[in-house]
């Protein structure tokens, strides 16, 4: 059985799935990851009903997103995997959003957008057809620059919590649609993670790449 953990936004969610059915549950909307995640997982297991030892795989959203949430989600996933021997698999918030868009019948160019806070978005481009194909890597961008850079011929769909907060800005792209989804779905994450090889997971903080360069070039007095 698979356990899914979602902490990339201010919401905290979890889910369970096996070959026959899946459930997901919103545990809190308002940054209470520390408080609600473990009791929430216990509640899901009790309702299924199942035991923690029945979990053979843990799929965790490792970002990008709310760093203080991701730390809780990733640490919890690692600890549970360590304790139970379950396999650990990471999925990104952006690919989960893109896959949710595909599930809702969206095709063509999609930009998954997670609220990066402080006036920026975490974004990644996808092409949705028979499969969900990533066209670039997760990166940080200002909404205005994303709008200015949107030159494709086909109308684009923005999906994610970023498409809620910045719906007004993103609507400036001709023909664009905003598909606002407040948090990535654990059920979608588990479906993606079911087919992936286990690997070590660390929170994805895409600002670091830029910032490390900046750090290295600064000399100290």
């Amino acid at each position, binding site marked *: 059985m698979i356990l899914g953990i979602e902490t990339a936004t201010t919401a905290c969610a979890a889910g369970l799935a096996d070959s026959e059915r899946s459930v997901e549950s919103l545990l809190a909307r308002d940054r209470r990851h520390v408080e609600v995640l473990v009791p929430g997982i216990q509640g899901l297991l009790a309702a299924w009903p199942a035991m923690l030892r029945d979990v053979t795989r843990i799929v965790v959203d490792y970002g990008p997103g*709310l*760093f*203080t949430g991701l*730390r809780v989600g990733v640490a919890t996933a690692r600890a549970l995997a360590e304790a139970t021997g379950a396999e650990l698999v990471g999925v990104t918030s952006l690919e989960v959003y893109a896959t949710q868009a595909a599930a809702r019948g969206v095709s063509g160019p999609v930009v998954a957008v997670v609220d*990066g*806070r*402080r*006036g*920026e978005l975490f974004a990644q481009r996808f092409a949705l057809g028979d499969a969900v194909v990533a066209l670039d890597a997760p990166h*940080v961008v*200002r909404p205005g620059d994303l709008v200015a850079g949107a030159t494709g011929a086909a109308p684009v769909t923005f999906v994610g919590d970023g498409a809620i907060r910045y719906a007004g800005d993103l609507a400036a792209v001709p023909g664009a649609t905003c598909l606002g989804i407040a948090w990535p779905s654990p059920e979608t994450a588990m479906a993606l993670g079911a087919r992936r090889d286990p690997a070590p997971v660390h929170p994805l*903080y895409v*600002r*670091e790449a*830029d*910032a*490390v360069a*900046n*750090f290295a070039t*600064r000399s*100290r*007095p």
Partner: protein
Amino acid sequence: MSTRRCVRPADTVAAGRALAAWLAPGDVVVLTGPLGAGKTVFATGVAAALGVRERVTSPTFTLVRPHACANDRGIATLYHADLYRVESLDEVADLALGELVEESALALIEWGERGAALWGPEHWEVRFTLDDDEVRELALVAPPGRAPVGGWAA
């Protein structure tokens, strides 16, 4: 960008008080400039204006120090950080200062340019320069759309 001349430490404290009047919960203020430029002195002015009771000193050895505030502006906590001794950016990212302040706090970050990419475009910056006569020039850069209404270049 406007600059403000601070001849004595008390002028730099007053500059901190002046900036505090424009600050809101969620704001990040980056203080840049050489050692001894007056960044901590400035922070005492901001803290005083926000109703911090305890003494504000350099947080160099703790990286960040939270101060409880008493004001009617919705700012409950002032996080005062100093990145001078930070060895790697992971340490700065791990503080998640940008997220900590979101609800009812603000952050004052000495040597904050060392984490520049982490703050995003929406932050304040005060650049300290020192002339040969020890006079401080404080240049203020406001976040987009938040130009302070008069009063800085006093």
